[in-house]
């Protein structure tokens, strides 16, 4: 172990963090929107909506993400129609292809999580809301969605962490995010262990902060479940939330 080399490596790898975070944030947020749509389609009961959504989730969860990235980045270019289309300037960029693949992939996993959350909304709550005169979007926005979100959040947190790790695959389509830089450095110096430690520390730090952030959001969202009269034991609740995310 050579401290000077480790420091130099670490500083170089830090340069990849913005790209890693960009890929993760954009694909997770875009994926969440698609996931919500898919979950609503699966729950709609109309088979014309249910089956396409189920087929999509089946395909995306049953095939490797790397194959999906290659399908979008290399595969689509096989068709002249795509190469001449308006979308070509986007589809020939590895950056956008990686984001597209990551978002489409996480959407399938997210859809199942959200579907589970929606399923967990107690029927009585919906009936009570209806009795109060709520319906449609208002019912969804005020009652169903917040309760479902609370149920889904711990599992969705796991999915977000998996996505941070999945951004590393973007390096295979030439993007220089943390893993991409690490791979280049390893191939140049063959000092795999030192570089692995530096890159690993960066991912562990990102995922640790994410776990904490999700636990915090969970804590905020479950304020009504903690008795007001009981003394607040934030540390125990935080720990329980962290444990839940780690199953």
């Amino acid at each position, binding site marked *: 172990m050579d401290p000077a080399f480790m420091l130099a490596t670490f500083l170089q790898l830090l340069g990849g963090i913005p790209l890693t975070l960009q890929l993760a944030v954009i694909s997770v947020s875009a994926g969440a929107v698609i996931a919500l749509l898919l979950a609503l389609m699966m729950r709609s009961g109309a088979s014309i909506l249910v089956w396409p959504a189920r087929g999509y989730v089946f*395909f995306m969860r049953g095939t490797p993400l790397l*194959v999906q990235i290659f*399908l979008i980045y*290399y595969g689509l270019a096989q068709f002249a129609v795509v190469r001449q289309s308006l979308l070509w300037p986007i589809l020939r960029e590895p950056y956008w292809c990686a984001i597209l693949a990551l978002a489409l992939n996480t959407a399938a996993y997210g859809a199942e999580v959200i579907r589970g959350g929606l399923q967990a909304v107690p029927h009585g709550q919906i009936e009570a809301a209806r009795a109060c005169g709520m319906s449609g979007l208002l019912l969804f926005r005020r009652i169903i969605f917040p309760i479902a979100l609370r149920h889904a959040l711990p599992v969705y947190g796991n999915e977000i962490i998996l996505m941070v*790790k999945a951004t*590393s695959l973007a*390096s295979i389509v030439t993007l220089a995010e943390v893993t991409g830089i690490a791979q280049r450095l390893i191939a140049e110096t063959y000092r795999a262990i030192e570089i692995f430690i530096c890159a690993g520390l960066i991912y562990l730090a990102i*995922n640790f902060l994410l776990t904490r952030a999700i636990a915090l959001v969970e804590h905020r969202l479950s304020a009504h479940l903690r008795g007001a009269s009981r003394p607040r034991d934030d540390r125990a609740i935080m720990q329980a939330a962290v444990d839940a995310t780690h199953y």
Partner: protein
Amino acid sequence: MSYFELMGFGPLGWGLPMLEAAAMTFAVAVAAMAVGAVFGTIGAAAKLSRSRIAHAVADGYTTVLRGVPDLLVIYLFYFGGSAAVTAVGHYLGAEGFIGVPAFLTGALAVGIVSGAYQTEVIRAAVLAIPRGEIEAARAFGMSRWKCNRRIVLPQVVRFALPGMGNVWQAVLKETALISVTGLVELLRQSQIGAGSTRQPFAFYMTAAAIYLLFTAVSTWLLSRVEMRAMRSVAKA
């Protein structure tokens, strides 16, 4: 050339190489799963043991390997493995660069990552066994080993099945990453085919279909096995 000629078994068809590659994917996945089972068992035993050191080591193992991208672990094994073997080789008097077989590095890398997940699955399965059953077995005069073999192990297998099924699905898909080391599994073969025929979509879609077949058949089989394993457990 039509799709069926392209993926067929004729003189210009890629059918046979693709099938061989699919078999390679399956073989690597099985090997990785086996490596993972060894690490998972040791990890679970360490996490359940009273030794604080063993517990801390196992905790570190699962935290790091579940928090770091698998691709990075594959690079570590691929480059680090050959560097280590070359160093040992030089020490023993060999010359030049010595590579490690891609199958071995791939199975080890994916296996050690899956071992971290299997550790949690096995640990949870052991904890799911009612304490009373173990106490009863001991009260009957069974030795520790006999109790493990007759009471603990069969139930661990039963309770671990759903989790192991998930790990297996993940391992199957993760083997695609081994293609970066040059091992000719399904994805690498598709890359080769796509490169020489300029029909990437056809090849990657075929690869996707084969992965889908693997995962779908596994899901179906696992649900059958699970149902059989749970037949003696009362349904709630």
